[in-house]
């Protein structure tokens, strides 16, 4: 079962690197034929469902499943007592129970799962399970986790990680000092395709096959196998079609439950969350608070950053410790700065667990440092652009961790090229109400509308950090001019499937590139996160294709008595660069079958020491955003009119796909700026639905004008940097700065709510 492919793009190009090649899954997706994991189906399958805690912190006194089991159509009910292997899992620490056993630590924590013949039967079975709780006081205030005033809510303690970054003269006081306290709300990934999986038990009941929407098949496999008490090879995963991810599928959600039910019933189990359950079932972006003090010379030269940052990780560790180090090591922003005093905490609480979301800790840091840069600009009498240009980081500068930025670092160019993008025209007198703040609902008073402009610039690390070798594997098979690629890289929508084909066409001179199913049948590709797959899996596909090309050249060279080093690919031909030989790749080696596998590793990184010093990151990408907004200050209504951006991408490999990443990331950053927040009351989510958790719609989408800065990155296998995360990072502070510019309000938290604009200071 391989996917076939359109070999050329509409534009008559061959679909090689640099072209807007057409996605191989595009046709199936527009026709409704693409199989998302929620579309998976098997004969004789049962539906799984999960019972969750209503309390943020409670002792479980008893669980009675007898009434549920008695319901006609219910096949089984399982609890913690039915987990044969490890009782807990986790990406970094194994601290999250498969099912809560003695205690629940967040509202929404799984307690039991049922399998039944119809989703409705399963729902009734959940209602029939009787759990007796003793409600406990909940740890909801991150400061209480730090000051020790709350007894540990987990054996691993209430502080998940503390990391300082200390560098330079700790007594330094700048000529100009600005301070601020900033808060970031809890954002949801809100991928559209809900969590879903289909588990098929092996006939002997000692293994399972899982079709699942995830970001990293091999990591899931490892965690699932441990909980099932099965050897790795008896847990086989295939990627089910993924409807977006954005970090929210990095952790285990229903995987273990689904496999357990399949093994318990010896029948295929389909599990899928509804939207409300999805809010409970995956981690979110960390809410954070940051107290910052920036020191500068009178001319605006940044000298020292002081930060105390607290990230609420919720009940379980997930990736909190990695999110924290991303935040604390990016606190200076894309600016030179010699002195730092950063103290960061990721804490445990009885709030919902938080972990990865696009931007991974840097989103929070960036909202803080960019707000501070604007304050510095005002204090030094500089414009927002000038203060950023004065301090713009360059290749060779040092981070506050002591690491030298040896990536291409065109920060100044990002700013200048963003500034060069024309401003939008002023709001027309007769603008349609849909084009002004508030839209067709509560519409702004036209005479009240004020326009504002704001800036944000960011730095983002690429790949995993702190000594982790997140390598990627790919295999290339070539026979008679047809290439077949295999990798376990999770395609979540970003378009790696088309990039892989483009690489093979460019390297091998073939047109037809088939793709094997994405599964654990090959080695790991690492996670589709950290803007890393173009670099890592792209590097692996490139490496595998190059190995195949070398073999092919050896073969052709031998047949024509040539030195293989003289051969090259030209279009779809092999040519002798110093002679006249020209032969189509497809006809160059009849019957020859080549098959090579390649692992791409990035260079090694180090852990941070206790002062946060060390070469912990692999590489960096940069971006600038300028936001133009219209605001009605009396009603607190905001319309984001235009986002101008110039992004450091290394090299554009697929212009259309790159633009899609930029525009999509900007919309998510806009969401965090002005509308998206999971609201908690006493640890319980108030708005777990699309009715109450607002997402940007087509009417909220600003005009995006994007410039891609192409300065190929020498370290990157294809010269291209990851482009997924940067678009959503500095756009948020840029929008908030624009609202400040229009209103004069301080606006120290995101999302900015109407009341912050109307009643805020």
């Amino acid at each position, binding site marked *: 079962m391989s996917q076939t492919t359109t070999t050329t793009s509409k534009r008559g190009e061959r679909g090689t690197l640099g072209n807007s090649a057409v996605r191989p899954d595009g046709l199936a997706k*527009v*026709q409704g034929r693409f*199989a998302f994991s*929620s579309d998976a189906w098997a004969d004789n399958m049962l539906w799984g469902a999960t019972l969750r805690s209503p309390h943020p912190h409670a002792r479980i006194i008893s669980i009675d499943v007898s009434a549920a089991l008695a319901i006609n159509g219910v096949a089984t009910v399982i609890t913690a007592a039915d987990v044969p292997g490890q009782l807990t899992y986790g990406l970094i620490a194994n601290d999250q129970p498969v099912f809560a056993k003695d205690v629940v630590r967040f509202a929404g924590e799984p307690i039991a799962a049922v399998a039944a013949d119809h989703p409705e039967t399963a729902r009734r079975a959940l209602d029939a399970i009787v759990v007796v709780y003793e409600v406990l006081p909940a740890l909801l205030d991150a400061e209480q986790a730090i000051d020790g005033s709350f007894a540990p809510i987990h054996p691993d303690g209430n502080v998940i990680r503390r990391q300082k970054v200390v560098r330079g003269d700790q007594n330094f006081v700048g000529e100009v000092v600005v301070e601020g306290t900033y808060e970031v709300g809890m954002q949801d990934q809100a991928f559209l395709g809900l969590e879903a999986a289909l588990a098929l038990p092996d006939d002997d009941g000692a293994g399972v096959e899982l079709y699942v929407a995830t970001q990293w098949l091999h990591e899931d496999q490892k965690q699932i196998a441990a909980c099932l008490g099965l050897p790795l090879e008896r847990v086989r995963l295939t990627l089910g079609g993924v409807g977006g991810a954005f970090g929210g599928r990095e952790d285990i959600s229903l995987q273990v439950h689904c496999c357990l039910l399949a093994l318990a019933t010896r029948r295929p189990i389909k599990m899928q969350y509804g939207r409300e359950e999805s809010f409970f079932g995956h981690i979110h972006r960390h809410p954070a608070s940051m107290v910052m003090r920036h020191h500068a010379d009178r001319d605006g030269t940044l000298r020292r950053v002081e930060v105390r940052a607290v990230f609420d990780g919720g009940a379980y560790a997930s990736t909190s410790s990695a999110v924290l180090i991303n935040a604390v090591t990016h606190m200076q922003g894309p600016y030179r700065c010699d002195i730092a005093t950063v103290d960061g905490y990721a804490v445990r609480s009885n709030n919902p667990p938080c972990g990865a979301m696009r931007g991974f800790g840097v989103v929070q840091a960036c909202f803080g440092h960019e707000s501070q840069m604007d304050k510095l600009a005002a204090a030094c009498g500089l414009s927002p652009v000038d203060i950023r240009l004065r301090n713009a980081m360059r290749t060779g500068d040092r981070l506050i961790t002591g690491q030298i930025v040896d990536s291409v670092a065109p920060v100044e160019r990002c700013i200048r090229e963003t500034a060069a993008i024309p401003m939008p025209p002023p709001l027309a007198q007769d603008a349609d109400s849909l084009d002004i703040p508030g839209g*067709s609902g509560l519409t702004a008073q036209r005479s009240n509308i004020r326009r504002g402009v704001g800036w944000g610039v960011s730095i983002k690390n690429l790949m995993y950090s702190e000594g982790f070798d997140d390598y990627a594997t790919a295999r290339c098979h070539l026979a008679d001019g047809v290439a077949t690629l295999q990798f376990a890289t999770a395609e979540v*929508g970003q378009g790696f499937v088309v990039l892989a084909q483009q690489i093979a066409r460019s390297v091998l001179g073939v047109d037809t590139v088939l793709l094997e199913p994405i599964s654990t049948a090959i080695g790991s590709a690492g996670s589709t996160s950290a803007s890393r797959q173009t670099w890592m899996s792209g590097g692996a596909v490139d490496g595998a294709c190059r190995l195949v090309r070398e073999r092919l050249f050896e073969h052709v060279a031998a047949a024509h008595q040539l030195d293989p080093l003289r051969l090259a690919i030209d279009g779809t031909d092999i040519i002798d660069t110093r002679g006249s030989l020209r032969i189509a790749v497809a006809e160059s080696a009849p019957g020859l079958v080549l098959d090579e596998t390649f692992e791409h590793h990035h260079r090694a990184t180090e852990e941070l020491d206790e002062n946060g010093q060390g070469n912990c990151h692999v590489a960096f990408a940069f971006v600038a955003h300028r936001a133009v907004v219209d605001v009605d200050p009396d009603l607190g209504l905001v319309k984001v009119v235009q986002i101008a951006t110039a992004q450091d991408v290394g090299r554009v490999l697929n212009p*259309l796909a790159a633009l899609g990443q930029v525009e*999509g990331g900007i919309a998510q950053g806009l969401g965090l700026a002005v509308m998206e927040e999971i609201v908690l009351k006493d640890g319980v989510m108030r708005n777990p639905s699309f009715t109450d958790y607002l*997402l940007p*719609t087509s009417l909220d989408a600003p005009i995006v004008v994007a410039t891609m800065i192409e300065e190929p990155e020498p370290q990157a296998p294809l010269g291209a940097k990851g482009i997924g995360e940067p678009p959503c990072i500095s756009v948020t502070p840029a929008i908030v700065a624009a609202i400040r510019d229009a209103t004069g309000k301080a606006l120290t938290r995101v999302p900015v709510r109407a009341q912050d604009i109307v009643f805020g200071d």
Partner: protein
Amino acid sequence: MSNEFYSLIVNGKEHEVRDAWAGESLMYVLRERLGLPGTKGACEQGECGSCTVLMDGEAVCSCLVMAATAVDAQIVTVEGLSSDPTHATPTDVQQAFIDAGGVQCGFCTPGLVVAVHHLLDRNPQPTELQIKEAISGNICRCTGYGRIFAAIELARDQRNAPPEQPAH
């Protein structure tokens, strides 16, 4: 459950629905009983538009329609938009989504494609603002809508382009 059955007319074909629970939504029946999983569900509350189908020519959220009440309607899903009897050739709108880069994860795509057909069939020359308004009930989390607008404009312009003159 009951032994009753009802019929739905979907993509021009009559389908019997047997032993269904009366509370099942049209979305559920299309997906789980009629083997038409092209219609997606991302909220089941009428907020995301990924379940959009045409009912007697009107775009509706199939998650909000009880299947048993749709018995007399002509229902068209994303699988049935193509005029080609095998539904293999993409429609102009579907092709425009591919060409303009309007598809990333593709979960919103079927609902959007149906909504755009509905728009262009009623209003062949929608303005930029009319386009934005027409799809404001269809959430896309991946694209930020830019390439989706481009796809719709492409489909609109291609429909309105004068037929190509043979070269002399």
